[in-house]
């Protein structure tokens, strides 16, 4: 039988004096008072349950808000919904005086949302066209190329861009951007790209789809850029190193090692930016021209869904007018919810389990 070797342990607990505190533990005098007090406190079951219910109610308020918005919008748009049905979104009327096509006739209570849908889409996509390359370029610069010292101030500047209120963007656009476009940029566009039919010289004000698209681009750029940055930094370094080890240039490393892995998230960021552009109100209202017409030229006056609501709601002419405006608001609500939900789902997919997790 093998020898049992027990390691030498001190079996007699040592009685040492810890730093002169004295051996005896001070006998507490009012021990029983404290214990009695605590015993009398009860189990707080009611307070706990009440508290958790209260917090739950606060959380449920989110659902209440959505339900309330949806309900109010649906209820208040019943008039025009019953009168026009789905045609509301694409019909056109004729102006009795001029014989031309018209869409928005508050006087005769004839309404079509088509020019506003058109304007919203045109200005938003124009904004995406301009801002996505810039935003992604900025994100690439900040994550892969930027010297460390510059990174924080530049990120802070981007955050500031996102924080500027829409009305200030609009103010600046009206007094600075639009004149610049009108005097310097539009003539060039007409001259060089007039043949496409997108740039005709029929707008002396400088307002229109292009101005709206440019200011929108500036406004959604920070969102797309910071989300893209987030997604790009989430790509593990091992992916970058693997590509570099194959002898790739920096751009190739970015393209294959980072962007490829991050592309779902970048798409999500772009969709989120689109969602913001679709609903943007003040700046667009100030520079798009607020004319309920459809034009091919990007330099022409137009309108957007949010613009017409902002401009006409407070002084609507009659119940049908209000109802039509509310219906446009409902359409805006539904569209932005769908777009944002899609973007959130994409971002959620990216942050949960991604293909870039392989090492």
């Amino acid at each position, binding site marked *: 039988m093998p020898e049992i070797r027990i390691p030498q342990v001190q079996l007699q607990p040592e009685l040492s004096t810890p730093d002169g505190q004295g051996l005896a533990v001070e006998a507490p005098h009012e021990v029983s008072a404290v214990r009695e007090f605590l015993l009398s406190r009860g189990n707080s079951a009611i307070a706990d349950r009440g508290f958790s219910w209260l917090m739950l109610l*606060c*959380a449920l308020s989110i659902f209440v808000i959505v339900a309330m918005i949806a309900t109010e919008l649906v209820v208040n748009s019943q008039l025009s919904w019953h009168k026009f049905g789905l045609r509301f979104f694409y019909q056109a009327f004729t102006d009795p005086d001029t014989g031309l096509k018209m869409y928005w006739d508050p006087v005769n209570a004839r309404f079509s949302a088509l020019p506003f849908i058109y304007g919203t889409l045109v200005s938003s996509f124009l904004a995406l066209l301009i801002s996505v390359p810039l935003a992604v370029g900025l994100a690439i*610069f900040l994550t892969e190329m930027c010297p460390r010292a510059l990174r924080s101030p530049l990120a802070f500047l981007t*955050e500031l*861009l996102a924080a*500027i209120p829409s009305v200030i963007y609009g103010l600046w656009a009206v*007094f600075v951007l639009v004149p610049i476009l009108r005097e310097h940029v539009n003539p060039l566009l007409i001259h060089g790209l007039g043949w496409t039919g997108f740039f005709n010289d029929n707008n002396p004000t400088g307002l229109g789809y292009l101005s709206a698209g440019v200011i929108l681009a500036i406004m959604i750029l920070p969102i797309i850029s910071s989300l893209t940055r987030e997604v790009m930094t989430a790509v593990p370094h091992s992916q970058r190193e693997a590509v570099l080890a194959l002898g790739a240039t920096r751009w190739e490393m970015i393209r294959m090692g980072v962007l490829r892995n991050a592309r779902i998230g970048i798409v999500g960021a772009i969709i989120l930016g689109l969602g913001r552009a679709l609903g943007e109100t003040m700046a667009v209202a100030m520079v798009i021209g607020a004319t309920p017409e459809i034009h091919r030229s990007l330099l022409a006056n137009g309108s957007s869904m949010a613009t017409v609501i902002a401009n006409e709601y407070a002084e609507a002419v009659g119940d049908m007018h209000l109802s039509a405006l509310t219906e446009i*608001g409902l359409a805006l609500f539904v569209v932005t919810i769908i777009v944002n*939900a899609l973007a959130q789902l994409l971002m959620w997919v990216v942050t949960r389990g991604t293909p870039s997790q392989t090492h």
Partner: protein
Amino acid sequence: MSVETTKFRSRVRTLTDGAVTGLSILATLLVVAPLIAIFTYLIYKGASSLNLAFFTQIPKPVGESGGGMANAILGSGILLGIASVIGVPIGIGGGIYLAEFGRGTKLANAVRFTADVLNGVPSIVMGLAAYALIVNPQKHFSALSGGVALAIMMIPTVCRTTEEMLLMVPHVVREAALGLGVPNWRSVLSITVKTASPGIITGCMLAFARVAGETAPLIFTALGNQFWSVSLNQPIAALPLQIYVYALSPYDDWHRLAWAGSLVLIILIVAAVSLVRFVTSRGVLKGAS
């Protein structure tokens, strides 16, 4: 592959790399430029109009020069006060639920998703809802409806930031409180929330700053007012709303005021954003290991 082809491809790859670097830098400059342009123009146009009168007087009738936006500043304060009183407690409560009671449950996930989606809904829609809810039945515009519209915007934002800050409190802190026999509600409020309070406050500040600049939901709820008003049941002026109206007017004087008002608004917002950045970069939970 021949040596020449390899050399050529190598040259192309290097050039592409350089081109992309250049484009990225260009993109960065193109982004930074409007920001600097906006700020410098704001300061240039707005600073000269900022005087004591701006902060103490209401607008003068058209044609008279001078006057200020004092009523709009006060009005914004009142509207934000209403919005905060309604929105902050509910938002924080929702955040507490998400972090402390509902963690991992399907309900909490649904709430979180909905809050994020709600954050992306255009603010003018909130105005429409507040109009239908309050202005329509009351048959008049009011500060209350404007405040409610803003509150609806604050709730999802405050809820999410509160949740995020609470999740950062280390679990051992909660355990220590529970282990002492502290009731759960007291532990959540006096320990967890208190530990996360710097972060929660900055979250509220962010929501506050965001909502302070909102115009769209106020256009047909608070409506705006050319005179002093503190009544909750009447239209009230608001700084961004006034800027909007003045910007679109044909009067130079009012343009001047619009620039000054914008400068005040942007300074407030920049201060809030900078403060938030400062607090979060220093470490929200200093001392918690």
